[in-house]
């Protein structure tokens, strides 16, 4: 089974986000970048399959410049067999999905994992676009996945519940919490990752459909109004007067 895991290179979840003075991009000073946590669920799930069978090959791919290579090396340290980097700055979800689909189309992957969204753009767009561009079945927001031969049972989050689905490979699955547990790479994995292949692919010219004009920080709260713990009834009366409850 050939598995592709699509990876975004994103600021660590604890990052205090600030932007460049012109508002065009993230201020990267002092920011640690990591594998997008939802993508890492996909990689962890792929590793579960690899540990159960000898014939599972895991490739990881990222659209980004050379700065993203440590993130790809971490994916190799966790256990992916090879890594690919499409050498360009991602412009929007459509351009990323197009670049990955153009590259993956003739590679006959049985299973493609993505995160449910990246924690930088939060658009949740690449998985559905990629499935459509590649013409493969799509299970979104998956919390559980079992594969037996070509048959798949997947659990998909829906409003107020879960839906159980039957599907066939090839398949694209967008992952979220529940599908697998994150893994910490061990020393052997980190050593092995250094010699695993990381191939740089020249990016084709591709259009983007959405342009980011600027970023700004959200307006913060103006300040917390405190009520005494002896008399929390006051808070209820304020919330009620303001029509909040």
């Amino acid at each position, binding site marked *: 089974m050939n598995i592709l895991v699509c990876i975004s290179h994103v600021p660590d979840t604890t990052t205090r986000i600030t932007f460049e003075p012109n508002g065009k991009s993230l201020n990267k000073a002092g920011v640690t970048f990591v594998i997008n*946590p939802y993508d890492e669920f996909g990689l962890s799930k792929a590793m579960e399959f690899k540990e159960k069978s000898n014939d599972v090959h895991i490739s990881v791919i990222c659209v980004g410049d050379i700065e993203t290579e440590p993130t790809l090396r971490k994916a190799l340290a966790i256990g992916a067999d090879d890594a690919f980097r499409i050498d360009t700055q991602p412009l929007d979800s459509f351009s990323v999905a197009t670049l990955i689909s153009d590259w993956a189309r003739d590679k006959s992957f049985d299973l493609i994992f993505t995160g449910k969204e990246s924690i930088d753009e939060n658009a949740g767009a690449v998985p559905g676009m990629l499935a459509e561009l590649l013409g493969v079945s799509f299970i979104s927001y998956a919390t559980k996945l079992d594969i037996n031969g070509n048959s798949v049972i997947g659990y998909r989050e829906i409003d107020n519940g879960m*839906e159980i689905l039957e599907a066939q490979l090839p398949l694209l699955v967008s992952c979220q919490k529940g599908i697998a547990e994150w893994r910490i790479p061990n020393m052997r994995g980190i050593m092995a990752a250094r010699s695993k292949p990381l191939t740089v692919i020249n990016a084709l010219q591709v259009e983007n459909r959405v342009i980011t004009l600027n970023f700004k920080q959200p307006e913060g709260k103006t300040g917390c109004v405190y009520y005494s*713990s002896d008399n929390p009834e006051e808070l209820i009366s304020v*919330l009620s007067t303001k029509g909040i409850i």
Partner: protein
Amino acid sequence: MSVLVYAELDSGKFKKATLEACSYGVALASMRNSDVAAIVIGECHESELFQIVECGISKVFRVLDSHLETFTTSKYISVIQKIVRENGFNTLITSQSYNSKAITPGLSIRLKSAFISGVIGLPRIEGGKEIYQRLAFSGKGVEEVSALLSDIVLSVKTNSFGVNKNKTGELNVIPFNFSLSDDVNYIVPKEIIKTSSTISLTDAEKVVSGGRGLKGPENWGMIEELAGLLGAATACSKPVADVEWRPHHEHVGQTGIQISPDLYIAIGISGAIQHLAGVNSSKVIVVINKDSEAPFFKSADYGIVGDAFEVVPKLINAVKKMKNSL
């Protein structure tokens, strides 16, 4: 520049987020001086459709087909694509329900449209272009974007725009027959498991959330009681879900569910940056924590420094008194 809203049915009813998408579509069409219509797939009572009319949409494309009674991503993409194309709509609007989030990216590919996910409010116009705002970096940034194509697919962030049901009008239903072509990407829905909570966390207008400060799962009774009295959903922080005091579907935060209710009450949650990322677009935040230095107070509108085990029972009594006096 005409607008089509996908008015999603959930067990024969429109949820608030759907009516919000309808209200948004009406406001956007009015800004553009264009037409607006809705598409409704599946069975519902006729009276339900009047809720859309009250939002300001008279024209409803109605699709009834036994193949479409259960949602499937690929079939719903196909039918919505067909209605958009055959009727020349160039803007499609949806909520951010899980089903809508499953279809919008694929639809944007089929419709050769730009996709803007999770808009917060109507666009401003600059140089003849519509500029939309959305949240990025898990709510830690506001991004302004514009589409480079004239055809667009927009999803509206839940609870960011509100429902405006003050219009009157005639209901004009256009039946739409849809014959499914051979669907190669079939996925077969087998079963739906509903979570036990009566209020879905992503739709909830009010949320009461507990953290490690509650010391153990046995102490959640007061959280549930307060939530019940307020008509709120219950939620929890990541550490609480990790040790399985509460089910994972209650975990709000960066890697859990992101919510934006009108009221978020955080009890015994310190307010780690990853937790804030999941709740910082809530309209009013109340924090109850015995540590006056808890970072959450910096993001709160109202705070009580005190022991949850003393404060929460008092709050419960106060809410009961308030309800009795009404």
